[in-house]
């Protein structure tokens, strides 16, 4: 039988070329774009380039909107992932059997068919003052006019953004946790722990949650990265201040003032550094590279 794993150095030239081409298709465009962004932010390229300068990076420390957008985006992503994980864990553990394999399990697939713009439209229709929740509040006598309904969208805390992303993520995470529950044979480990004297809380704390969360960590990291760089939902449900990082980068890029453009690319470079570091941490403990 041939050797399953091959080394680059022993590859024939045509196979090496194929490897380079296959890698280039996915790796070159992002790094080309990010390299350009970094070079632009350092004054090396662009319409107003004057040679290497750290001025834009130094300015970053003085401008509050970039740091505020970074902090706001990180906070929104962290709260969304935490909220969605807690809800999905609770619901999947409590309703796993009740949902079964029929209508219940099928219903969880419905939110998978909702893109961000549709989630934003639904969020707008449900969470706005004159939306579904506002109308319910009016019928219950809690408010007399739409303006009295608490601001859940276009608010400075990003509540609408968090709610919309959480609503999209919970069914997906429920499917993930339900599947992991079966694949990781958690029921069997839980039964073993109970036989050894563990009570229900100890089984949950020491067996079920660690197993589920450890296996779900890469997916949760991708969810964090997705919300951190989200565009459509913050664009349609977010306030003008503070902005999510994608909105700020896009706004600074689209301004007529070309002096703002290095900042847009600087934001992109910082964003990419954070996301790529996160992905590296989450996926570096993948199954070993050698197979066979």
């Amino acid at each position: 039988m041939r050797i399953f794993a091959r080394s680059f150095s022993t590859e024939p030239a045509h196979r090496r070329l194929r490897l380079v081409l296959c890698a280039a298709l996915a790796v070159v465009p992002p790094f080309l774009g990010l390299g350009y962004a970094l070079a632009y932010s350092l004054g090396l390229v662009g319409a107003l380039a004057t040679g290497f300068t750290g001025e834009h990076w130094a300015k970053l420390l003085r401008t509050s909107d970039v740091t505020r957008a970074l902090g706001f985006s990180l906070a929104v992503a962290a709260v969304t992932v935490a909220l969605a994980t807690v809800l999905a864990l609770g619901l999947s553990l409590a309703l796993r059997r009740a949902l079964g394999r029929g209508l219940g399990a099928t219903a969880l697939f419905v939110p998978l068919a909702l893109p961000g713009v549709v989630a934003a439209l639904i969020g707008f229709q449900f969470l706005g003052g004159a939306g579904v929740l506002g109308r319910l509040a009016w019928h219950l006598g809690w408010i007399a006019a739409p303006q009295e309904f608490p601001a859940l969208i276009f608010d400075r805390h990003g509540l609408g953004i968090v709610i919309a992303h959480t609503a999209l993520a919970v069914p997906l995470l429920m499917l993930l946790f339900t599947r992991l529950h079966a694949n990781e044979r958690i029921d069997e480990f839980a039964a073993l722990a109970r036989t050894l004297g563990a009570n229900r809380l100890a089984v949950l704390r020491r067996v079920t949650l660690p197993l589920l969360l450890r296996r779900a960590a890469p997916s949760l990291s991708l969810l964090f990265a997705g919300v951190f760089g989200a565009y459509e939902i913050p664009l349609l449900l977010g306030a003008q201040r503070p902005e999510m990082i994608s909105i700020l980068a896009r706004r600074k890029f689209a301004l007529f003032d070309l002096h703002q453009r290095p900042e847009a690319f600087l934001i992109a470079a910082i964003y990419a550094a954070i996301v790529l570091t996160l992905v590296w941490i989450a996926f570096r403990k993948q199954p070993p590279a050698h197979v066979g």
Partner: protein
Amino acid sequence: MSADSANAIAVSWPRRAGATALIVLCWLPVAYLALLSLARDWAFPALLPPGLTLATWRRALAGNDGLVTSFATSALIALLVATLATAAGGVASRVFAYHRHRGWWVLAMHAPFALSPVILGTCLLYFFIRLGLVGSSAGVIAAQFIFAYAYAVIVLIGFWNPHVAALEDLARTLGAGRRQVFQRVVFPLARPLLAVAFFQTFLLSWFDYGLAAVIGAGKVPVLTLRVTEYMGSGNVQLAAACALLLIVPPLALLLLNRRLAILAA
């Protein structure tokens, strides 16, 4: 008694009620959008519309608003992106899977997939301008392909395992040529996962907003852009109709093919 019915008996009523509430919540957005697209004068504080009308759908399907064109444009772009990405991803996943640094390649493939399309699109805009691709369907397809290709590799790399390699070797030992090995052994085995990769990359393109807005410069009239246009102009009925056009095809596919849905999830 089947295992399912035994489970149903064991489940307590609060859990059954909770499951029912969750099912209703999952379907609520679709039902609400359908009602909104049919509603007539649905003003605050009415909980239900005073009447229903097909006027929005007549307008949407008449073609004057270009919704039919948008649907066709979105479908064509998504089909092209999914076909190209699945084919290229199939080839590339084999190259990476049999390489000794397989883990590193998988990690590298996550780079475009994890980045925000709007931010990466903005960074790549200069190169797309130089290539004359901005504001064109070709530009949107090329930009979406970067993301879809990486995702297809991530989905398909798991297919190439020692068992498949052994089957390929066995077929070759029995005298099969390269084409026969592909046609008779590899393709039939890979078909379910190829379907998942095709479906997922189709969705990636079908749901895309950021790249269509940045690289397409708003000139490629895909459905996602139309939803925001209608929302911006305050025409929520047409936005709802447009949103339904966006969600019904993938929803129908997910519900008709549960296996695809489970693998896709």
